[in-house]
């Protein structure tokens, strides 16, 4: 964790990473509560427990890089710098939401940020990131695409087809598999006959690495190395980030399929806790951590207020935006 790159990361940048991780954690915990209170009508797939991956990966990216995400996408989007207020507004199904209330949690998107969307289809974002990487390569400005997906998605054809294509064409793409050891409700050993997903890269003559996803700085370093290769035209990388979802597949899933003690083991390796320990060891005092946390709570208070104040869409707005172009001056439906 204390390699060259980590050394180069200043305290202020580390605090930024911590803030981002804490923001994701609290955004999700509050979302669960807001859903219980009836503010959020749709599904939620909380990212709690996996914050180290999203924040570590996004810390290695630059403007112009793009990412595709998953059904568990809030963390990726926040780590990329999205506005939590517009995210809550979308979850609340209000007009000021990122998708004008037409997407919800599973479809959050902000192209200006380079966030090409959460995705309701397991593995759905992988070919899209691959194609975005193709265009980035054509543009020749050294930009990359990152695709997040879970262990379950590595059993989809889209994963295998995309890795084959990306390696064949040396595309600037980083595939980040968040192995949280469950594909929906099924443990990894019951959904694939392998334990090390990174080895699937071997089939495509691609670099494959396993990273402790709960260590945000290790995640950042592994991603920096992969991104550097991608920018240099040396092709894609498959990163297997080992992590764990604390709250089950979706909000409300009691996760009774987990063996006793498993959650506790992972809670001991909670990415926030690990990083707090690292910060304290580096001389960060409790007061600073508490300040950061208070700032996040304030941001989220404001975000929830913004969402609640945002108008509901009109029912007939459902007929808008089916197509970019009008037809004979009228919306085409």
């Amino acid at each position, binding site marked *: 964790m204390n390699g060259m790159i980590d050394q180069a990361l200043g305290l202020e940048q580390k605090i930024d990473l911590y803030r981002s991780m804490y923001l994701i954690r609290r955004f999700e915990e509050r979302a669960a509560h807001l859903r219980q209170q009836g503010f959020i009508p749709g599904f939620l797939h909380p990212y709690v427990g996996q914050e180290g991956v999203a924040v570590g990966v996004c810390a290695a990216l630059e403007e112009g890089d793009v990412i595709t995400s998953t059904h568990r996408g809030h963390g990726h989007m926040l780590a990329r710098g999205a506005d939590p207020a517009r995210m809550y507004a979308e979850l609340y199904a209000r007009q000021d939401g990122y998708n*004008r209330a037409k*997407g919800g949690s599973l479809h959050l998107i902000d192209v200006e940020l380079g966030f090409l969307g959460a995705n309701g*289809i397991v593995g759905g974002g992988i070919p899209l990131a691959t194609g*975005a990487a193709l265009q*980035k390569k054509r543009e020749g400005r050294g930009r990359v695409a990152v695709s997040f997906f879970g262990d379950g998605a590595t059993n989809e054809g*889209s994963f295998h087809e995309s890795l084959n294509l990306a390696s064949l064409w040396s595309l600037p793409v980083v595939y980040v598999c968040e192995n949280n050891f469950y594909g929906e409700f099924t443990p990894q050993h019951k959904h694939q006959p392998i334990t090390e997903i990174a080895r699937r890269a071997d089939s495509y003559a691609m670099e494959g690495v396993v990273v402790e996803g709960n260590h945000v700085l290790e995640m950042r370093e592994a991603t920096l190395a992969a991104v550097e290769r991608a920018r240099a035209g040396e092709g894609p990388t498959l990163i297997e980030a080992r992590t764990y979802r604390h709250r089950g597949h979706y909000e409300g899933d009691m996760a009774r399929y987990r063996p006793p003690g498993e959650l506790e083991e992972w809670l001991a390796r909670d990415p926030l806790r690990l990083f707090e320990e690292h910060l304290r060891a580096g001389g960060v005092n409790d007061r600073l951590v508490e300040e950061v946390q208070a700032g996040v709570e304030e941001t989220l208070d404001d975000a929830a207020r913004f969402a609640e104040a945002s108008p509901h869409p009109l029912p007939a707005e459902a007929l808008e935006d089916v*197509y970019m172009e009008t*037809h004979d001056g009228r919306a085409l439906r």
Partner: protein
Amino acid sequence: MRNLPYRDAIREALIEEMERDPDVILIGEDIGEAGGAFGVTRRLQRQFGPERVYDTPISEEAIVGAAVGAALVGARPVVEVMFGDFVTLAMDMLVNQAAKTCYMTGGRIGAPVTVRMVTGTAGATAGQHSQSLEAWFVHTPGVKVVAPSNAGDAKALMKAAIRDPDPVMVFEHKLLYGRRDPVPDQVDPLPLGVGRVVREGDDVTVVSYLHTLYAAVEAAESLEAEGISVEVLDPRSLVPFDRGLLASSLRKTGRLVVAHEAPGRGGMGAEIAAVAAGEMWDCLRAPVVRVCGRNTPMPYAPEMEGFVIPDAGRIADGIRATLRQPAARRPWS
């Protein structure tokens, strides 16, 4: 004005659009050195290079997905689906991803991808290389559907499809590739949703497209001897569909036959019949008749194939039926 095969007209459209816009790229199986299974992209990779004409592995989901992903970040990809039947392997990328982009971003971005669907029977091509799947996409809000039946329209509509900000499925019938028609020296994009009167007539309107259109024209010509005057319309694009043209024709004839190669059940003909019955009922003087592919998979044997797809004789029977009493037994049923 030149007499140009449909195949060459499509190629000219691709060339002119690629020359006009460096973000237009071609992607598909064997479209490079091999020039595509039907020769549409012949010599294009030599002309534009492998960074504009991408010859791919046999990975339909990755091909279409990469095109959609590239489209999200600025490319204007044109995909060739070697046989339209293979789109089944890429449906997620079209139906769940591209078709929803505009809608679920609240109109902020589109997925401007053009998908060339090689369609219909070429004679004994059987169940997995012959299908006419346009209705699936007509039924998918968010995509547009184009079905050119001659070289000039193919060129003009292909240009329009490539410039369109939405995903456009272009259905190209295999038996039309070699067909020659006059094409002006300069062809501008033709707006989608503008149909064409192929042949004027007073008694019955026949709407048809792609290869079946010529069977409809043949039927119309044969019925002249019986004193039946048939108007033939080619909608050219199915979404958007030129309702105005249909209405003006039905005001004159009051009778409608719809003919296409795809199976009748749930087909475009059903949609056109519903448009006529719902919006132009005051014009109708007889029940609408559909003359379509029979509701079977495409058989291999030529005699069975000929029985399944509509020909001029069957269309002529359908036209005659509209001129009888509504209760008349339909000879093809």
